[in-house]
C-alpha cells in the first residue's frame, strides 16, 4: 500500500536557514539565557560600565537617571553597577555551593547505595539529621560560630545542601544497581568507586543537572538571606543581600535602593528555574524516546 507523504515533514519545509535558526532558538533558548548570565559573571563590564566601588559623595542617594540607571546609594556609588557585580557574586558563589554539594552528595550517596551495610545506615542517619533542620537556621548557626564572610557562608550552605543530593543519588543508585550492567561490571572486577564513576554517573547526570540548576536559584536566595543578616559578604563587597540590608536604613527616602536590587535576584532565580524546567522536560522526552 503506497502511503502518501505526510505534509508535516519538518526537515523538508525548514529548508530556509532562517526558519531553522528560529526553531533552534525556540527550542534551546534557556541555553541562551545561561550564556547571557555567564557573560555577566565573567565580564561584568559589558553590562555595567560604571565602577561599583567608586565613591561620589556629592551624588548620594540619587534617584534613577540616564546616567545612573538604578540611581546611587548612600556613598554615591552607581547602584546598577553594584547590582551587576553583586549578581555576579551571588550566582558565582551559588554555583560553587551547589556544585560542591552535588559532588559531595553524589559520592556519599552513591557509595552508600552501592556498599549498603553499616556505612549506609550511618550515612543515612546523618543525612536525616541534616535534612530535618530548617536550613537557614543551620546555616546561621554555622556561620555565626565560624565568623562572617563569604567563605563561611559557602561552607555553611554546602554543608546544609549536600544531604539532599546524597539522598537523591542513593535512591537512584539503589534502583540502578539491580540492573545487569552493574553486575557485569562487578564480575569484571571493577572497583566500587569506578562503578560509580564510569557506569552509574551517566545515568545520574540528567536528574542531577536538573536539580543542580534548580538549586542554584535557591542557593542565591539563601545566600542573599544570610548576607542580609550580616553573615555573608562584608562591606564594601557588593552582594545583593548586603545591598538590600544597607537599603533598609534608607527605606523611606530611596525607593530605588530597596526595590531594584531585589529584581536582580528575582531575575537570577527565575532564570535558574526556567533552565531547570527545560532540562527536566528534555530529560523526560529523552526517556520517552
Amino acid at each position: 500500500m503506497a502511503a502518501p507523504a505526510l505534509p508535516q515533514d519538518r526537515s523538508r519545509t525548514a529548508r530556509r536557514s532562517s526558519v531553522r535558526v528560529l526553531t533552534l532558538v525556540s527550542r534551546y533558548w534557556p541555553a541562551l539565557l545561561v550564556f547571557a548570565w555567564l557573560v555577566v559573571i565573567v565580564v561584568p563590564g559589558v553590562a555595567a560600565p560604571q565602577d561599583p566601588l567608586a565613591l561620589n559623595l556629592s551624588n548620594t542617594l540619587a534617584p534613577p537617571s540616564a546616567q545612573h540607571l538604578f540611581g546611587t546609594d548612600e556613598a554615591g556609588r552607581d547602584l546598577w553597577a553594584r547590582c551587576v557585580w553583586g549578581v555576579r557574586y551571588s550566582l558565582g558563589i551559588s554555583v560553587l555551593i551547589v556544585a560542591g554539594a552535588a559532588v559531595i552528595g553524589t559520592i556519599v550517596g552513591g557509595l552508600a547505595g552501592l556498599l549498603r551495610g553499616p556505612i549506609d545506615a550511618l550515612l543515612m542517619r546523618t543525612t536525616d539529621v541534616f535534612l530535618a533542620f530548617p536550613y537557614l537556621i543551620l546555616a546561621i548557626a554555622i556561620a555565626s560560630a565560624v565568623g562572617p564572610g563569604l567563605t563561611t557562608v559557602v561552607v555553611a550552605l554546602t554543608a546544609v545542601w549536600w544531604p539532599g543530593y546524597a539522598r537523591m543519588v542513593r535512591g537512584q543508585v539503589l534502583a540502578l544497581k539491580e540492573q545487569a550492567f552493574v553486575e557485569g561490571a562487578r564480575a569484571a572486577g571493577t572497583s566500587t568507586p569506578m562503578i560509580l564513576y564510569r557506569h552509574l554517573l551517566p545515568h545520574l547526570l540528567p536528574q542531577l543537572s536538573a536539580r543542580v540548576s534548580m538549586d542554584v536559584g535557591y542557593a542565591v536566595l539563601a545566600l542573599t538571606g544570610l548576607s542580609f543578616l550580616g553573615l555573608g559578604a562584608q562591606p564594601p563587597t557588593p552582594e545583593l543581600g548586603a545591598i538590600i540590608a544597607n537599603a533598609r536604613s534608607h527605606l523611606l527616602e530611596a525607593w530605588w535602593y530597596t526595590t531594584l536590587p531585589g529584581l536582580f535576584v528575582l531575575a537570577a532565580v527565575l532564570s535558574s528555574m526556567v533552565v531547570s524546567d527545560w532540562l527536566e522536560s528534555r530529560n523526560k522526552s529523552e526517556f520517552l524516546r
Partner: protein
Amino acid sequence: MQAVRDVSFEVLAGEILAIVGETGSGKSTTATAMIRMLPRNGRVLSGQVTFAGQELLSLPNREMRRLRGEDIAYVPQQPMSAFNPTIALGKQVAEPLVIHRRMSYREAAPQAAKRLREMGIHEVERVMRSYPHELSGGMLQRAMIATAMICEPRLLILDEPTSALDVTIQRQILNLIKELQVGYRLAVVLISHDLTVVSQVADRILVLYGGRATEIGATSSIVDGARHPYTRGLLRSTLTRELVHKAKLASLAGYPPNPREVDRDPGCPFMPRCHRAIAQCAVAFPPVAGEPDHAWACYNPEPAT
C-alpha cells in the same frame, strides 16, 4: 487521528452484544464514546448515540451524569485498580445510590449488602468493611458489577470483565452476567478480545479491526459461518476440543495495525495480514454486505459453510 470509523450497531433489552477486537481495534474507545467518557483529548466527530429514544451526544452534561450510573452502567477494566484504595468497599458499592437517590451511606448500606450477596459474595459484612487491596480479583469484579447494578440500570457495559481473572473465575463471572441479563432484562454490551469467551454468553457479536466494523451478526452465524477472513482467523486460532492432539495451532500472521497508519491508508486495514486480499482491498474500505442478521465488510469474503 481517528480511532474508530463508521461503526454502527444496536443493542436491545434482554440481549448481550459482544464487541470483539484486538488491542487498538477501537473497542474500548467505542464503548467510552457511547457514554461520553472519552479522555480529555478525545472527541466524537460525527454520529449519534440513541438511548431509549434519547440522543446522548447532544445532552447537557448534567443530564448525561444523571444517566450514568443510574440507567447506563459502565464496568471498567481491571477491578483491582478501578476501586479507590483508600475507601472501604461498602461505601464504594453504595456510592451510586448516594449520588442518584440522595441517600446517606447508612441508608444505602443494606442495599449494597443485598447486591453483593446477589453477586455471589459471602461474608458480605466483612467485604463491605474491607479495602480493595484486601480482596481477590474475582471478588472485586463481582463487587464492581454489584456497584453497576445497584441502581438497576437498563444498559450494562462491561469492559474486559474477564481479562484479569483466571479461567475458573471467568466462567463464574460470565454466568453471573448471563443471569443478570435474564433476570433484569438488561441490555448488555460486553467488550473483549477473546472471541471464544464471549461466544459462550453473547447473543450477537460485533468484530472490530483497525477501528472499523468488519463483521456483525448472531453468535451462531459468526461461530459457525464467519465470512470475514479476520473473524475466521480468530476462530481458528483458539483452542477448542475439536483440535487434533499435537496439531499445529493456526494463527494470524503479522501484527495488529498501528492506529496512525490505519488512519492514513485508505484501504482495508486487515489487508496486510489477509490471505484473501485482492487489489481492490487497497483502494477503499469495502462496503457492507450480508444477510438480515449477519453482515460483513469484505471484497473477498470466506465462502459460506
